[in-house]
């Protein structure tokens, strides 16, 4: 389907007049992912789905229903279920309203047709290049090469007609050598830009450079985290910038905007149009998404809203609605602005510290205080006198993220990183005081 066909499908879905207002969100998702381990492909898939989500509003009350059927009967069934739910729902304090007509500022080059059509043989060849590098290093590789096309259309009875298509290509690799493992990743809008040989080589070098693994002392360390690690850490701050979380009192921002929460060198922005994101310019109800400065020079400036939370809190709508609505608005393209010095300079100016390639299983220990615990994995190194001095066993940490960001230095280059539930653009960072709680046996 193209945008025109998706819009036509959405318009068919909202064609009935039984609701006061009605909205359809059509999402078309095509995921292709080639997964490998021990230098062979063990999972390889291609998945297509078109989903139609309908929100009906009756007397200020909303009901939701969805279907992946596309004929008129399927759409009518879903529409009628949504209307029936809306008629039944108790009236909310803030009546549900759908947004009106809007215009959108499209990001640059979000879609690459060649990436959308990448055949499995091309993904396999990209994986083979990683295998070759790993074998040469005496290691084996586990990871994936993936492409995805995400298309979304929102249409509502108030005249919203919004359409967007974007592609993403990604690879990640863990190289496993006899003693240690190493990690590297890459993201791009274009599959052709993924250099899997380079990604494999970075991961393999980390695995083989480690040597015999040392055991770090328990206590406070100077720690340099590479972008995948900083991204995962900051991802646990992102929910704090939701209007709902703040209203509930579970965000550190419940103490108020305009306060200094982090160092003056830290600025966080939600920016869907950043060249490394180039993602959808509207939210799940078709409101234009704003570029929102969340933290500027360490001071809390703003948070994100949607139609409902803008009205509840008497603020502007920043266009961050998430379909379903139960968890409230959410930032979806957070950028950590870069600093002044290179990653290499940060290492060279560290007398004694630890370099972390990647974190694992970070979880919230205390949500209001933003205390988290987690582990390192796949490339943890000792730094002495400005040089990497070999690998370390993995360590557990307990840190307050705001404390880390209050005393940190950021590198001068940002990259796209991400996990299963977030995307982020960020640099590397050096934290002055990072608390190591325990150490693993490997």
């Amino acid at each position, binding site marked *: 389907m193209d945008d025109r066909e998706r819009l036509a499908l959405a318009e068919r879905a909202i064609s009935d007049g039984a609701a006061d207002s009605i909205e359809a969100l059509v999402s078309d998702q095509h995921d292709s992912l*080639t997964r*490998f*381990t*021990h*230098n*062979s*492909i*063990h*999972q*390889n*898939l*291609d998945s*297509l*789905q078109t*989903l139609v989500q309908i929100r009906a509003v009756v007397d200020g009350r*909303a009901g939701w229903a*969805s*279907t*992946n059927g596309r004929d008129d009967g399927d759409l009518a069934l879903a529409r009628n279920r949504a209307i*029936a*739910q809306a008629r*039944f*729902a*108790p009236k*909310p304090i803030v009546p549900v309203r759908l947004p009106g007509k809007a215009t959108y500022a499209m990001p640059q080059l979000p879609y690459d047709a060649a990436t959308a059509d990448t*055949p*499995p043989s091309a993904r*396999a*060849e990209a*994986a083979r290049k990683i295998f070759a590098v790993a074998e040469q290093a005496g290691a*084996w590789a586990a*990871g*994936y090469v*993936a492409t995805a096309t995400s298309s979304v259309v929102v249409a509502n009875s108030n005249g919203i007609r919004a359409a967007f298509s974007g592609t993403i290509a990604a690879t990640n690799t*863990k190289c*496993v050598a006899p003693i240690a493992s190493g*990690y590297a990743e890459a993201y791009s809008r274009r599959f052709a830009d993924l250099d899997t040989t380079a990604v494999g080589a970075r991961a393999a070098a980390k695995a083989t450079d480690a040597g015999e693994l040392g055991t770090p002392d328990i*206590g406070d360390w100077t720690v340099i985290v590479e972008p995948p690690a900083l991204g995962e850490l900051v991802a646990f701050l992102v929910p704090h910038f939701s209007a709902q979380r703040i209203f*509930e*009192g*579970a965000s550190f921002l419940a103490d108020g905007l305009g306060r200094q929460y982090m160092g003056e060198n830290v600025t966080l922005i939600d920016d869907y149009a950043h060249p490394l994101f180039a993602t959808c310019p509207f939210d799940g109800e078709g409101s234009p998404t704003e570029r929102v400065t969340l933290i500027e020079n360490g001071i809390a400036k703003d948070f994100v809203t949607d139609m409902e939370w803008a009205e509840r809190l008497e603020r502007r709508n920043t266009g961050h609605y998430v379909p379903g609505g*139960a968890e409230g608005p959410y930032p979806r393209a957070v950028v950590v602005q870069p600093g002044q010095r290179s990653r290499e300079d940060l290492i060279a100016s560290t007398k004694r510290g630890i370099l972390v390639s990647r974190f694992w299983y*970070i*979880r919230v*220990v*205390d949500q*209001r205080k933003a205390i988290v615990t987690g*582990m390192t*994995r796949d490339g943890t190194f000792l730094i002495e006198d400005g040089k990497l001095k070999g690998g370390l066993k*993995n360590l*557990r940490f*307990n840190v307050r993220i705001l404390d880390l960001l209050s005393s940190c230095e950021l590198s001068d280059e940002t990259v796209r990183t991400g996990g*299963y*539930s977030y995307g982020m653009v960020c640099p590397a960072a050096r934290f002055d005081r990072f*608390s*190591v*709680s*325990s150490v*693993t*046996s490997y």
Partner: protein
Amino acid sequence: MTPVQFEELAGRALETAAVRHADYADIRFEDARSERIEVRNGEVIALRDDVSRGYGVRALCDGSWGFASSDDLSGPGIDAAVARAVDIARASAAVGTTRFGMAPGDAHVGTYVTEVEIDPDRVSLEQRVDLLIAAEYALHVNPAVRTGRAHLDVWRTKKEFFSSIGSQIAQDIRQIGSSVHALAVGNGDAQDRGWPGDRGLYMTGGWEVVARAGLIENAPRIGEEAVALLSAAQSPSGSLDIVLGGSQVSLQIHESCGHPAELDRSLGWEANFSGTSFLEPQLRGALRYGSPLVTILIDNTLPGGLATCGWDDEGSPSGTSDIVREGVFEGFEMSRDTARLIDCTTNACVRAQSWQHVPMIRMCNLNLLPGTHTLDQMIDEIDDGIYMESNRSWSIDDRRLNFQFGCQIGWEIKRGKLGRMLKNPTYAGVTPEFWGSCDAIGEPSTWVPWGTPNCGKGEPMQVGRTTQAAAPARFRNVRVGVGYDGR
């Protein structure tokens, strides 16, 4: 359900796979309905009814797998999906050296339907919403309860599975879950309490499961406890004896036994994401995993188990098998292709989140057998310790050894008696040492099939539904207070 609604399309798919020289193929159709209601502070904030229908095709060609899914239920749509699966498998076979195969398996023909006492379809939307509004309202015992939530999930999945070895299976699986949750805010702090357990009570079955959850009856206590936690003493640090409530023991089994016993992890198939395992095939029958009290079994026939069904998603029949027997590691959760690599047969632990997702090894029903102690006896035998309930935080390393968990609430134990309430209790350890310190497990009346509806694994990430039945248990000399002690 119509037992073989998709037989004709399945025949076309398997024939197409054969024509394209697939060595093995299967096709799994799913027709799923998911209903969710969520109430927050007196308002219904989610009232959803989602349906999804489609199929996934697996093809094994030249020792490599391909998987394609589609919602196009036309004949040409089936042809195209099978062609994609075969093409993907051949692309996989063109690189790498490992060749995959299947452990022997029989063809199965049959149907399975979840037993339901009270059909949720007979419970009106009005009754459902009324229950949640009343339960959520009952949380607000004090203005400090800033946010109350109550929710209900009702899931029905009809599956049909057909394979090139002749299996033809139809299943109609019903799952349901509900919970209440209070967030209290004050004194610069925020404290959560949930019931039942931390995620709710999720089981296979019908409305009787919601009745068993006791939402309205327990909501006032949960609200009161959330508020009391705001002024409770900080849980201490050090090394103490602890008793864990049943739902926390369930989480402990899930993270430190269920995941490491997945054979795909042990073989490195999840190495780049979900991680590997300290449990290796050569350690079966030799590794001391826990104390002799600890026996952990797979039982995918357990009544009410969230993963209970007739056959798994590659057509193997549900049964029981040992993971840990009297403290000794005995076996893995397996699929047909991984079982072959350690000369075993599968124990039917393959699941896919939906028709869109590739089937893979998932933790299913994995249960710690009950012991003989009452909760009072466990506490009575402690001089200085903590009783902890309901998970709040969970983190474990990528081989499933070094863990740190936090609970929503704790109580001091002094000289055999429960004392004052404690906030932010945490504990940490290393898996075999921790289970080795287990010296009491609750008796059968305290044993509950705790379901987890949102277990993540795989790339792309899949959400699995699993049960770890458990009773309260006692562990000696455990590190506590981590995360709040400056370390």
